[in-house]
């Protein structure tokens, strides 16, 4: 296909090597991104991706103050990247601009403290999960929320998750010899599965094992995305380097990494290397061998290797929101392709751009109202579909949609695990009985 050098160069360019800021030269000022931006649509505080990204980018230089602080109102959903006809990496330009503001000390201390706390789910998990009943009580009490707002400017109604009673990695460790196979995959659980929703990891392991894989759960850190999106690049790079150290040897043995958190897998594949301009050979190995779980299952399906026989029917009609962080993988809708295999299950896809939460964005008092306004069309859609549960791949979106609608959310892999006959936990268990 690449039968002349020029074409080959185009292909390489399209992959990894194009420095983020240089893509702003591809901007033709057509404003399509502005029409698609869900934040611009609801607030004047954010003039739009073109203005704060490629346009203001021309006036940003190292060692000089940022000309434009409205870039901090970008929620990182990447819808702009998806609709850009010329391939400008707008969201990444915005992310790096925010980091520049953070590094040059232009963020007030209270907010910097807050951002550093909510951007460390691993730290919160390590302290909070062992004391789950107490921590949950405190985090979800009016008293706790009052002080979180007072001291740290955390939105009183922020869709914070609940710590789970059991750490996922403990469960995985206990059953590590359950299945032995030459076909192995590495599972990246991320912080949400480890500390808040172990049931997602269990479902993933069960599905992979049912397809004949031995699942390795290595020691791992937070992927670093919350730190990246809060402009704390040095701390994010420390996490990313640690994850590479923990996992790259498995990749070198020929095993791939599979994750259930769409934003974690996007970070391992692309966000960390691009935002940090961190393109070591090991980082590239990780990029080339990390899969979202449904991306991986679609590969198996295409190769005729996915277990599709004897699936339990699921007579349900459910709303599914393909999260913006998943669409940003540019894979289409792999989860929809897999859910379509489950007999009697009707999935109605949302057309909404974004749920609004943007990872930690919606936890911030000054941004909470924007989050809710961005998410409103999606919340309305979920309530119209009126299923007993709704489906979404990304954890912070699940928590946000559930908090806004009162409808419990599950990860699509939980549906497949249940269709395989495994005992569901959480909201799905109540629906299936």
């Amino acid at each position, binding site marked *: *296909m*690449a*039968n*002349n050098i*020029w*074409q080959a160069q*185009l*292909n390489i360019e*399209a*992959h990894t090597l194009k420095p983020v800021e240089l893509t702003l030269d591809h901007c033709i000022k*057509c*404003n*399509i991104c*502005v*029409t*698609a931006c869900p934040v*611009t*649509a609801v607030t*004047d505080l954010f*003039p*739009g991706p073109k203005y704060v990204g490629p346009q203001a980018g021309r006036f940003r230089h190292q060692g000089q103050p940022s000309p434009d602080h409205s870039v901090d109102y970008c929620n990182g959903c990447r819808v702009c*990247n*998806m*609709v*850009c*006809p*010329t*391939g400008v990496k707008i969201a990444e330009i915005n992310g790096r601009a925010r980091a520049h503001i953070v590094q040059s000390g232009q963020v007030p201390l209270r907010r910097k403290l807050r951002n550093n706390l909510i951007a460390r789910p691993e730290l919160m998990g390590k302290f909070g999960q062992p004391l789950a009943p107490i921590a949950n009580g405190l985090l979800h009490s009016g008293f706790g929320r009052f002080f979180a707002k007072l001291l740290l400017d955390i939105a009183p109604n922020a869709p914070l998750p609940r710590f789970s009673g059991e750490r996922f990695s403990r469960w995985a460790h206990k059953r590590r010899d359950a299945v032995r196979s030459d076909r192995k995959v590495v599972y990246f659980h991320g912080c949400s599965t480890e500390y808040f929703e172990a049931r997602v990891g269990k479902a993933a392991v069960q599905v992979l094992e049912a397809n004949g894989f031995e699942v390795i759960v290595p020691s791992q850190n937070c992927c670093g995305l919350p730190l990246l999106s809060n402009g704390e690049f040095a701390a994010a790079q420390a996490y990313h380097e640690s994850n590479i150290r923990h996992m790259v040897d498995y990749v070198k043995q020929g095993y791939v990494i599979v994750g259930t958190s769409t934003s974690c897998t*996007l970070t391992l*594949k*692309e966000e960390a290397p691009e935002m940090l301009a961190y393109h070591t050979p090991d980082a590239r190995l990780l*990029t*080339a*061998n*990390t*899969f979202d779980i449904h*991306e991986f299952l679609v590969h198996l399906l*295409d190769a005729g290797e996915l277990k599709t026989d004897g699936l339990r029917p699921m007579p349900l009609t459910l709303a599914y929101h393909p999260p913006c962080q998943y*669409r*940003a*993988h*540019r*894979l*289409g*809708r792999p989860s929809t*392709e897999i*859910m*379509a*295999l*489950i007999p009697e*299950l*009707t*999935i109605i896809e949302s057309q909404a751009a974004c749920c609004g939460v943007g990872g930690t964005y919606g936890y911030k008092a000054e941004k909470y109202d924007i989050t809710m306004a961005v998410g409103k069309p999606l919340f309305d859609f979920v309530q119209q579909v009126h299923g007993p549960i709704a489906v979404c791949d990304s954890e912070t979106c699940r928590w946000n949609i559930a908090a806004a609608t009162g409808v419990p959310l599950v990860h699509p892999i939980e549906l497949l695990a249940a269709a395989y006959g495994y005992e569901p936990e959480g909201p799905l268990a109540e629906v299936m009985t």
Partner: protein
Amino acid sequence: MNSMANDVLVIGAGLAGLTTAWQASRHGKGVRVIAKGWGATHWHAGCVDVLGYWPVDSETPATNPAATLPDLLAANPQHPYALVGLARLAAALGGLQHLCSDAGYPLVGSLDKNWRLPTAVGAARPTCLAPATMIAGDLDDDTPMLLVGFKQLPDFYAHLAADNLVQQGIPARHVVLDLPALAGRNFTTAVNLARFMQQSDFRAAVAQAVKPHLGKAARVGFPAVLGLEEATAVHQDLQVQLGRPVFEIPGLPPSVAGMRLHRILKAAIEKNGGQVHEGMEAIGFAADGGRVTAVHTETSGRPRQHRYEQIVLATGGILGGGIVTNHAGEVCEVVFNLPLRHPENRLEWFRRDFLDKQGHPIYRSGVSVNENFQPMDGRVLYQNLYAAGSTLAGFEAIRERSFDGVALATGYAVGNLVSN
């Protein structure tokens, strides 16, 4: 819920690609559209230009495309319209009109007549089909008009358009509104304004502000911001409130009127079970035995393969990004590296004057196809590959004003071909 069969993969989501997918999905084919981003539909005026000028250097617009097209076809038998034939062109126009009517957004016109509608600078623009929201701007009618601008919308200069119309003998005045609802803004966009227009209290404020300036105006023109999903209702409500015909003037991209067509076509494809994915750039392919076996798209990790029975290339020409050029004088089709018809010598790419009435030869570059829209290099290159829209060679879309007509007609033809 059943998976759709992998019947037709369409690369590109402009008017040609979406029309192909709409037609194929209408015939029950399992269709996937992949596109690098949004494009042509967001850039064009939301009308269907079929043939505005012929010969291309003509000073006067064609008044009747149906009467002029045979001359074009006789002079240029390689023209995409010649491959489509006038009957299929008419069927494509009728099909789109039907689809848009069903969506509550009628497109008005026929092949027998070009409208002359005002542009954002007050020039006359020949076009074949226009949304009902634009028709009252017809410049064959010389009744007085009032043009309404918004202080916060920098993309529409009401005074400029009005001055130019007056010079052409159309009595036109202008007013620029500074509404309290927009007072806090330095600027707004056409899309945001279209969303505001869908709120009844905002429309009432607009009507109240316009009324004192109506004078003898028999019709009122706005930039094309009269609603996105609810354009017909917004348009009718303003006509009632102002007591006279109201029309829209399309302006700078992104075009709200173009986005309406995008929404209608995308909804039709999805209703028929098709998928439309943006942010998916085709970067390569695999072939075997004279067939394309897979198309590869760029993703966050590694290329994804799409295996489909039939493949339609609708990535556009040089303007749309389907064909790229470089300083070394190479002209290249970006997905399949197909052989192209283009000026051999780089010195022949452009004429001396930017606005030369003959147009620039480089913009006629494109893929040569047979009567079944299969790319050719003396012989058919791949049995299951087709091309539609501005990717095709041999027409002067800019001077002819034939972008939309060629996109629609070839997309319609290919969508039906791959369904047989």
